[in-house]
């Protein structure tokens, strides 16, 4: 059984956000919820400042606090290491979200995609309402609905339950890459089996010095970051004198 992991090459990543957009359309992610997200940081003091960009997603931790804390096993581990969620078992206690050290779990506070459920027309009899548009496009709630998401998880999660990245388990099952990996124009995301020493993921982790987010917590995240983009240079000197 493979153990899936992802390597994100920060030197290749240009911060375009294509991963997030691809994720939204693949997984029918509602507004305000981000399965694929980012951390941006500014270091230094003006005018000596730098901007840092770290793409984020569920870390599919080996010792996942969300899984340990879920009272109904709605949040659970698959044999391939993916941290999966079953909304049909979720009681909406939000303990996984409370417990996640990475801020990657979100709660459906309302019926998802409220804007697309709106039946009001901007010009009565002249324009479609958002809900009509979604129906005409043959979608389910949203016009760009992806029915493939339904294969392993409700395509659109109901109100009152949490949701998060699943490493696109429905695609991975079919031998496809997670959609964020597929969509990355800079090929900054590398996905594969970390238990296979010949996988690209294993090779990269041996070649570079990876880091993981909040590693000291012992959660064993399976999203690794390698390299860091920094075009800055400086004049060598003896002790800066």
């Amino acid at each position: 059984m493979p153990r899936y992991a992802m390597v994100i090459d920060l030197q290749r990543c240009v911060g375009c956000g294509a991963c997030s957009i691809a994720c939204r359309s693949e997984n029918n992610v509602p507004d305000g919820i981000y399965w694929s997200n980012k951390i941006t940081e500014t270091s230094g003091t003006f005018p000596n400042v730098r901007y840092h960009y770290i793409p984020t997603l569920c870390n599919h931790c080996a010792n996942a606090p969300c899984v340990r804390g879920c009272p109904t096993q709605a949040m659970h581990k698959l044999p391939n290491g993916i941290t999966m969620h079953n909304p049909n078992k979720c009681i909406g206690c939000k303990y996984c979200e409370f417990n996640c050290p990475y801020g990657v779990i979100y709660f459906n506070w309302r019926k998802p995609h409220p804007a697309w459920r709106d039946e009001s027309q901007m010009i009565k009899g002249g324009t479609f309402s958002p809900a009509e548009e979604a129906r005409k496009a043959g979608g389910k709630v949203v016009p760009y609905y992806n029915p493939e998401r339904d294969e392993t998880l409700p395509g659109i999660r109901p109100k009152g339950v949490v949701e998060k990245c699943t490493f696109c388990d429905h695609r991975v099952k079919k031998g496809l890459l997670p959609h964020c990996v597929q969509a990355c124009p800079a090929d900054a995301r590398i996905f594969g089996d970390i238990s296979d020493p010949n996988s690209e993921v294993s090779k990269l982790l041996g070649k570079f010095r990876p880091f993981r987010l909040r590693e000291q917590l012992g959660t064993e995240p399976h999203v690794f970051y390698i390299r860091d983009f920094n075009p800055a240079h400086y004049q060598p000197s003896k002790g800066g004198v």
Partner: protein
Amino acid sequence: MNPSKGLYFTWLGLIGLAIIGGLFAALRLFTEGHYLFDTNDVILWSLPLGVYIYLALTSSGLTLLASLPLVFGVKKFEPIAKRLVFLAIATLLGGFVSIGLELGDIFHMIYILISPNFSSPIWWMGFIYSVELVVLIVKFWRLHAGDWHSPLSRALGHISFIAALVAPLMIGSVFGLTESRVTYFGPVMSIYCLLMAILSGTALCLFYNLAIAKIGGYALSETKDSICNDIARIFTYTLGTVIVFTLVKVAIESAAVIPDFLNYRRYAQAFGGIGKINTEVLLGLLLPFVLMAIPALRASHGTRILASGLVLLGTLAMHMEILLAGQSRPIGPKAEQYPQYVSYFPSIYEWLVFLLAVAVALLLYTLGERYLRLEAAPEH
């Protein structure tokens, strides 16, 4: 209790209004979702959860107090035992109402039974409190039937005592096991919750027994007066213990320079305070302790009602303070969507849930007091 009819029906009317308001809120929450709360993906747990913690812990405290006569054989407390068991049931039911309306989907609760996760502190908390509720109800039924000392009745007393002792520890561990939130992490929260349970349980016991005598316009019997003196003593000792614990906690939090604690401090005084000491600690712990420590004051029923009432308000505020201060900062990428610190004030729906939970407990107290002979004690 012998209140005038008018007062009694006004009281029931107020409770009825609170229940109707709460049911309206419940209906909207079930149909529209929890966006009606002033919560978001940073402040996840708010007033309804704080109220649940408060009522559940108070119920545990009442059960522990009831264990004095029912488990440890302190016969002197037998005249208040049945009432304590009933108050514990009613208070816990109020707590369950509050957490039920905090959950996103209570219709999935069946999975707590058919798909349990034994490594989850929430599961254990829910399980133990459910056991406590059922055992307390059966125990009350036995007491109501006059069965105080049969093996079954004693066994129920023992089980409810153990449940009431462990349940607060589990509430504490729900927080104490969150690695992501340093300000909660560790065994301290469990010990704190147990102490707070004993404190608020004792406060409610004292407040209730004295308040119903006051409302009913009758003087306490000599036995009852003596029991209240003992309860007041336990109350004062517990207050002292919680004060020491709280001051040590404040000192450690103030001295720590871990960023999470620095952030926590910024929001740890939602109700204001003097120096590092919060208002609710001043008014809800220190002032009642001073009132109860002065011999001339502590003998008065009025002072006892005031001190225990302040503690009942103060402990709720303290639970809310701890709950919110640890959540006020967005974690990880959520800082992209939310401000550096997120503020909170309960929405009307959260207040309605609060009112419903309290009203359910008060309605049960009222009906129990009228119909269930809560002063019954075994004949020796």
